[in-house]
Each structure stands twice: as structure tokens, then as C-alpha cells.
């Protein structure tokens, strides 16, 4: 697991309410299963060329989004990179709206304009799906800036990959959020690889969480295969952000089972390595734990799984039957209507 002793100045956390009711535990389990089944369905749809372009699956990493987002309030903001299906689902975006976006349909959460990498859902304070590596971390700081400015009491959770830590903008942003004491949590989803490059081949100064110490940020690590551990760590960081205006850099160790995207031949690691990692499967482990706690029965587990499969299938059917967006819709999305200045003429320069 990452950095036993990252040597980071860790601010003293407020005691977070960590005792989870049976219902909450079942809810965590259910969310992970929903995401897994959704992603498997997306993979099938990709193989049938119903989904095109890039499609990055979250399989293996479910506990990260589920644990982290379960520690948030509705008023908080969430933003992530392009591996975003699980995050959107955990945030509350419907499976139908997600799948329809993956199929490029008008009913998709981004109206078919964004695709798999660009899911957005304003109603759930989900600020996207961003495909330029690292770019969204500065945007995340802007969300936190506005939350502070407006004194909403909300905080921002920004998920990013291990590879993204090497973008210059991320270092600039970490400095700035610490300097300005913005209410934000950066969660590194360390799945050991950025495409085919392992963390060790891309990054000096490991563990990555150490980088926060250069800016006096609170640093924390969590086991991304344990949904409760993720939840507890994020809850502490959220509480620091909300009550102390102290940003945290949190490194969560996880693993993706599938290739980087559906188009990745995945030749840079061994089958054995993947098999070894699957022994820590977050869903399997949590199921066992809940069974030991006598919270989950085999029947209930089966029911949850059946419902998740049905939901994923329903989402795909909905997406398949949904209408395509057209150019008129696309052009209507370009500009916000003006109401404080005179309307601005907007010729389409491509019209002959």
C-alpha cells in the first residue's frame, strides 16, 4: 500500500462520524455493484461499436468514487478526469443519462456532445469529466474559490490520476489552494499506471502524496480497495476543508483491471499481476465483510446484483432507443443568451 509514512505534515483531523448504519453499508455495496455492472455493459456496447472514440472503464476502482462521494453533501462540488462513469453514477447521475451520453444521444447528460470522457451534471454539482490530463485541477480550485467567495459552506472534491500529478498546472494549483486556504480535497486515484507508464517510471519523489508537503498541505493515504477506508479518509479531509479551510492531498491506492481505455492492448503488465490484484477486489472484499457482519445475506447480494444488471440493461436499451442530437441543437449550445448587454451578432463563419 502507498506510503506507510509519507513524512507529510498531517493536520489533526476532526473526529469524523465513521460508524455506518447497516443501510449505509448496503448502500455503499450497492453503488459499487451498480458501477461494475454499468461498466461491463458499456464494454459490451463498445465491442458492438455502439460506443465509439475513447471509453475508459472504472472496473476495479469502484470503491474510490463510491467511498469518496459518500462522504460529501449535496452542496459540495465534484470534478474528475475522463475516467468518469463511476464518479457520475456515484454522484447521482442516472445510468440512463450516462449510457445515453456514451452512445452520443440527445438524452445523454451532455446531450451527446461530450461522450464518455465528458459527462457533466449540473443538477448534481458534477462539474465534469475532463480529458486534458491535469487541466481540471485548476478548474477545481476555481470551484472551491467560488464556494469560499460565496460562503456556501460547500467544498470541492477533485479526483485525478497518478499520471496527472506530473502536469505543471497541478503543481501550480496545489501551491495556490494551500496559499489561499481553499476548501478543496484533491484525491489521487493511484491505479499504478498512466496508460502504459507505471508510477515508478513517471514520477520522482514517491509516494505522490509527498508533493503536497512542499506546499504545507495536509497529506493522507487510503486503501482504494476498501470503500470504508476511502470514505473515512475523505470524510476527514472534507471536514478539514469545510471547517478549517485546509486543503488536503489524498493518495488512494487502487488498480484498474481493464486496459487504459477500450483501445489499449494492455501489454505492459502481466496477466499474473492483474490476477494478483483482483484478489483485493473491492466488491468481493466488501461483500465478505458485510456477510461477516451479518448485514448482507446471499439473497440480498443476489437481489442487488440482479437490480444492478437490470439497471445497466435498461440504461442501454434507453440509450439505443433515444434520438440523435442534430446540428440545430448543437449550434443552440454555443452561446449563453445575453441579458445584461445588447445581443451580440454571431455569424457562422462556415456558412458559405
Amino acid at each position: 500500500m502507498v506510503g506507510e509514512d509519507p513524512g507529510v505534515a498531517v493536520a489533526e483531523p476532526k473526529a469524523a462520524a465513521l460508524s455506518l448504519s447497516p443501510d449505509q453499508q448496503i448502500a455503499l455495496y450497492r453503488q459499487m455493484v451498480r458501477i461494475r455492472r454499468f461498466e461491463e455493459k458499456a464494454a459490451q456496447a463498445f465491442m458492438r461499436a455502439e460506443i465509439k472514440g475513447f471509453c475508459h472503464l472504472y472496473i476495479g476502482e469502484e470503491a474510490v468514487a463510491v467511498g469518496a462521494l459518500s462522504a460529501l453533501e449535496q452542496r459540495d462540488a465534484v470534478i474528475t478526469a475522463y475516467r468518469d462513469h463511476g464518479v457520475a453514477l456515484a454522484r447521482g447521475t442516472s445510468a440512463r443519462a450516462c449510457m445515453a451520453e456514451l452512445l452520443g444521444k440527445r438524452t445523454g447528460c451532455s446531450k451527446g456532445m461530450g461522450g464518455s470522457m465528458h459527462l457533466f451534471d449540473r443538477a448534481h454539482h458534477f462539474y465534469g469529466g475532463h480529458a486534458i490530463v491535469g487541466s481540471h485541477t485548476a478548474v477545481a480550485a476555481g470551484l472551491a474559490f467560488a464556494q469560499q467567495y460565496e460562503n456556501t459552506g460547500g467544498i470541492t472534491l477533485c479526483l485525478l490520476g497518478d499520471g496527472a500529478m506530473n502536469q505543471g498546472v497541478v503543481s501550480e494549483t496545489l501551491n495556490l489552494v494551500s496559499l489561499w486556504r481553499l476548501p478543496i480535497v484533491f484525491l489521487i486515484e493511484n491505479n499504478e499506471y498512466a496508460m502504459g507508464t507505471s508510477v515508478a517510471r513517471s514520477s520522482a519523489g514517491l509516494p505522490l502524496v509527498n508533493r503536497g508537503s512542499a506546499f504545507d498541505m495536509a497529506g493522507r493515504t487510503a486503501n482504494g480497495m476498501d470503500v470504508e477506508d476511502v470514505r473515512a479518509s475523505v470524510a476527514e479531509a472534507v471536514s478539514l476543508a469545510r471547517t478549517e479551510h485546509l486543503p488536503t492531498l489524498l493518495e488512494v491506492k487502487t488498480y484498474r483491471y481493464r486496459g487504459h481505455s477500450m483501445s489499449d492492448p494492455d501489454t505492459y503488465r502481466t496477466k499474473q499481476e492483474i490476477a494478483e490484484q483482483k484478489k483485493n477486489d473491492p466488491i468481493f472484499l466488501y461483500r465478505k465483510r458485510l456477510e461477516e457482519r451479518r448485514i448482507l445475506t446471499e439473497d440480498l447480494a443476489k437481489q442487488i446484483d440482479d437490480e444492478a444488471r437490470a439497471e445497466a440493461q435498461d440504461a442501454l436499451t434507453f440509450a439505443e432507443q433515444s434520438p440523435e442530437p442534430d446540428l440545430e441543437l448543437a449550434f443552440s449550445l454555443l452561446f449563453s443568451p445575453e441579458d445584461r448587454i445588447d445581443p451580440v451578432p454571431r455569424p457562422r463563419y462556415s456558412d458559405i
Partner: protein
Amino acid sequence: MAKITYRQALNQALAEEMERDPAVFLMGEEVGEYQGAFKVSQGLLQRFGPKRVVDTPISEAAFSGVGVGAALYGLRPVVEFMNWSFSFVAFDQLVNNVGSLRFMSGGQFDLPIVFRGPSGGGTQIGATHSHCPESWFAGVPVLTVVSPAFPEDAKGLLKSAIRSNNPVFFFEGERLYGLEGEVPDAEFLTPIGQARICREGGDLTIVSGGYSTHTALSAAGALAADGKEADVIDLRTIKPYDFDRIAKSVQKTNRLLIVEENKPFAGWGAQIAYDIQHRLFDWLDAPILRVTGLDIPQPYNAKLEGQVLPNVERILAAARQLLA
């Protein structure tokens, strides 16, 4: 002549130039152990070793700057962007440093550097990944902008770009990598700044570049069914472009249609249209038309993306309007 893919042609150019000159090295994300995100650098790590095939972190701003420094010092870097859309995080290096250092130093330094990778849309990877920044970079006075459409030119132009003592921005295409074509077996260079005539006809001149050349050729084929024949000119080099070759054709056909994938406003076609009307006004029988990407970010949806990109339908409509 051997039939190889555009990807293999680039690979051969890299290998030959690295063989020829130990100062040439390749740097970028996944170029080494992964063998290239699009396999352009396949086998190069094994052949030239990690000193000359350098895997980088996802740090475009930094490794572009490293390329600049290495070039100032005398090396000849080839810097790969996995996608030109990712070069924007390095815009300062590309525009301020590559664009001005030689000039501002009073000509003391050379910048023999190539930045290369795929640009453009058509693979449904959305607005952030589908840019055609050729015209943006062409706006920087000292930059040479190259965009080959065929395997032969991909090889010959990349070799010229690497041997050039000036910075060359080299635009490939995800949709072009798999394209096959004849490439000479013997060593050759394709000159920078010369267009290629892909098809000859007397009724109309169509100028294009990169992937759009292929769309333009399909349209010219369809036009022939109407009994109209087009000269199709593939620019190969966008800046400096081959004015003389276009002029010669326009003096024959008196009609010019420009097809470019980038967005319309201040695209390279606008520069060509300006130059042609300015210098050959009397030769034109109709206004110059441009078919460009529609003035909208790239949508993910397949049907929409097909409409946004220059397509045969829109080219035919413009050609018929010109010929009417």
C-alpha cells in the same frame, strides 16, 4: 517501390534519420516501452536504446521546453505529442520560445527541432481531442507547418523536417496512420514548400491538405460523374505553401475551392484565398470558396461529427456552386 502504411513510413523516416545522425533523438509520452500510442515509434527503443528514445511523464510543457533547450545546445530533437490537442499546455514553449529565441538572440541560436503527432477529428474523441491547430501555429512567423496526406510524403517530409535547421511543426492524422501507399525503396527527401498534384482537370482547382485531401479526392471523383474535372492539389506544406503551383492551376481553371478541416475563422485557406484574389483577380471567373470544419466545437456524436468535418457532400455543393 514498396506498399507501406503512413505509420510505417514515418517509422522508417525516424529510423533512417536517427541512424544517420546521432544528434537526432525522439522524446514523448509512450514513445519507448509502449512503442508509441499509435505505434509510429515501434521498434525504435529496441534499436536505438533509451538514451535516444525517451519516455516522458505527462508533462508537455516541460518536455517541449527540454526539446527547445536541447536544440539550442545543438541536438536535433523530435518531440512527439500523443495528440496535437495536448500541445496546448505547452503553448508558451511553442510560441514564445520556439517562435522567438533565434530572432531575439540576434540570430545566435539555431532551433533544429521537429514537433510532431496527429491532429484533427473524425474518430469521435470529442472537442478537447480533435483540434486542427495548424493555422494557429502558422500564425507564428518563423514556424514551418507540414501536413502530409500520403505515406510517401509522410516519409520524405519527416526526413526533410528533421534535417531542417529550423523548427518544423509536423501534423499527422489518426485517420491517416493506417493508409497504405507506394513509397520508394531508395533514400529520398520530399522538399518542404512544394505541393503535390493528386488529380488533373481543367474545370476547377481544389486545394486541400492532410486528411481532407482524401475527402477532396472522393469529391473530385463524384464530380467527374457530372462531367466536371478538377485539379486536386495537396498542399503537403501549409506554411510556406506552394503559391506558384496553385497559381498555375487557377490560371488554367479560373475557379478555386479550398478544403480545410480546421475552423473557418482565419484558417490557412483564408490566407490562400486572400493571396489568390490579390494577385490573380483577373484570372478568377467566380468567387473563391472554402469548405471548412463547421464553426462549432467538435461534437462526439458520429452523425454530427460527420457533418462538422468537411465531407464529400459539402465539397460537391460548393464545387457545383462554383461551376454554375
